[in-house]
């Protein structure tokens, strides 16, 4: 019975518009078999409920966490998950050869994207593993002569944790501060390089505030001082032009699920025009437009996130979203404690539409205004009181 249903559906889909006879939207195989309230395609064994209002999904504006899988990518991958399942290292039969050919083709594509040679590309499980390999690998390889590393305070957690674990092994690490713009001071970098420095690690585009570091200049400095330069380019590859040879990058980490153009100005301008006391975190010039971090004064970030339940957003990065502490990146750029608690990150990617941006802007403005109405701090500010002059008494 199920097979016939599937076949009918498949042929119908190939010839006509996707509309079932009753006019209700098609929800996939499962609904034909078990008649219950429309849910996602995940099977559930709850008792069938009466036809309720369909639950509408939120808009996705969190591309820094991960991106939608491009249908072209799925199409390229599927054959190797269905029929061409050979191990690329099987050298003795066609299954192995065809998988190896696909893998080498992919390797070449990645290499062309960043101006590297295919032999320089190593596939790992993701940018986290790549960062660990690059930093711990270089440090330990040269540890007999070189014991010093340099990185920044705004790096991704996996880079900072790798450095911390190396410190426990006896290495010395300099965590460079960033300026208010989020960009490091090149003079400070030059001053920090010691004769026993083996590696400098600076990310290309920051995942929380979208700031672009001057990678080409850093590459030049490192190359002239004979220090290896590693960059975490997870948020940058495929979005901004990168050439590892021009920029003198020795090691680069890339993330498969973040690779993948924006209506960002529209969002920033509309919000900042309609609401007072909104701060954009990070340098507006050296900035990747698809990652916008805004602080809404006198509004608590978590409550704004909850209010914007129809839009998938984040404050801070996914890997730190479970903790209650304000983001260390915002602290590093010198953001006030209360503004750091009020920050939201908007992620705009290839699949984001203008309509989605407009909806997000409208909801954001509506809820910020509503939350501010409820805020006693906002009331005081409206009455002209300088919040910094208040002496909060303790009971």
């Amino acid at each position, binding site marked *: 019975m199920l097979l016939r249903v599937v076949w009918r559906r498949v042929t119908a889909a190939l010839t006509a518009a996707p509309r079932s006879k009753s*006019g209700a939207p*098609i*929800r*996939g195989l499962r609904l034909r078999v078990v008649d219950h309230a429309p849910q996602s395609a995940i099977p559930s064994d709850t008792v069938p409920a009466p036809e309720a209002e369909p639950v*509408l*999904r939120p808009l996705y504006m969190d591309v820094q966490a991960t991106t939608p899988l491009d249908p072209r990518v*799925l199409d390229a991958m599927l054959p190797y998950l269905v029929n061409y399942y050979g191990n690329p290292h099987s050298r003795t039969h066609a299954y192995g050869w065809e998988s190896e050919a696909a893998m080498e083709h992919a390797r070449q594509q990645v290499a062309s994207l960043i101006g590297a040679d295919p032999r320089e590309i190593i596939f790992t499980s993701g940018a986290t593993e790549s960062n660990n390999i690059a930093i711990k690998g270089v440090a330990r390889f040269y540890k007999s002569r070189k014991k010093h590393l340099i990185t920044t305070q705004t790096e991704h957690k996996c880079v900072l944790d790798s450095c911390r674990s190396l410190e426990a092994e006896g290495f010395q690490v300099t965590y460079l501060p960033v300026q208010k713009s989020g960009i490091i001071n090149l003079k400070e970098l030059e001053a920090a390089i010691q004769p026993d420095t083996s590696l400098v690690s600076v990310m290309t585009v920051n995942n929380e505030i979208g700031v672009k570091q001057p990678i080409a200049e850093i590459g030049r400095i490192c190359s002239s001082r004979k220090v290896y330069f590693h960059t975490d380019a997870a948020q940058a590859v495929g979005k901004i032009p990168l050439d590892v040879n021009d920029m003198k990058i020795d090691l680069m980490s890339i993330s498969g699920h973040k690779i993948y153009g924006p209506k960002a100005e529209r969002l920033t301008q509309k919000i900042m025009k309609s609401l007072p006391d909104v701060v954009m975190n990070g340098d507006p010039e050296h900035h990747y437009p698809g990652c916008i971090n805004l602080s809404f004064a006198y509004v608590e970030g978590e409550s704004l996130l909850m209010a914007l339940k129809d839009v998938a957003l984040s404050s801070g990065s996914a890997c730190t979203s479970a903790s209650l502490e304000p983001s260390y990146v915002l602290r590093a750029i010198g953001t006030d404690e209360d503004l750091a608690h009020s920050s939201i990150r908007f992620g705009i990617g290839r*699949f984001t*539409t203008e309509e989605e941006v407009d909806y997000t802007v409208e909801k954001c403005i509506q809820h910020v205004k509503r939350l501010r109405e409820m805020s006693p701090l906002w009331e005081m500010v409206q009455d002209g009181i300088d919040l910094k002059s208040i002496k909060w008494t303790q009971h």
Partner: protein
Amino acid sequence: MAASSRAQVLDLYRAMLRESKHFSAYNYRTYAVRRIRDAFRENKNVEDPVEIQTLVNKAKRDLEIIRRQVLIGQLYSTDKLVIEKQEEPRT
């Protein structure tokens, strides 16, 4: 094989747009329509017949990709996004 005529290119353009509108996922549907329009517009002044044929062949392959992915999307379709127009409720 004769070089692709203007009519063939237009047919291909219309076929790709028509097929793309069947994507059940809002983001894929809107991206496909946008990208197809932009790509055909970008290449509208190409003169070299060899280049035109290469582009047409790529478009034909992409049309096949769209057809397959539309189907897969429909097999795994889920609820609409908050901004999509809802169908008229049945009385």
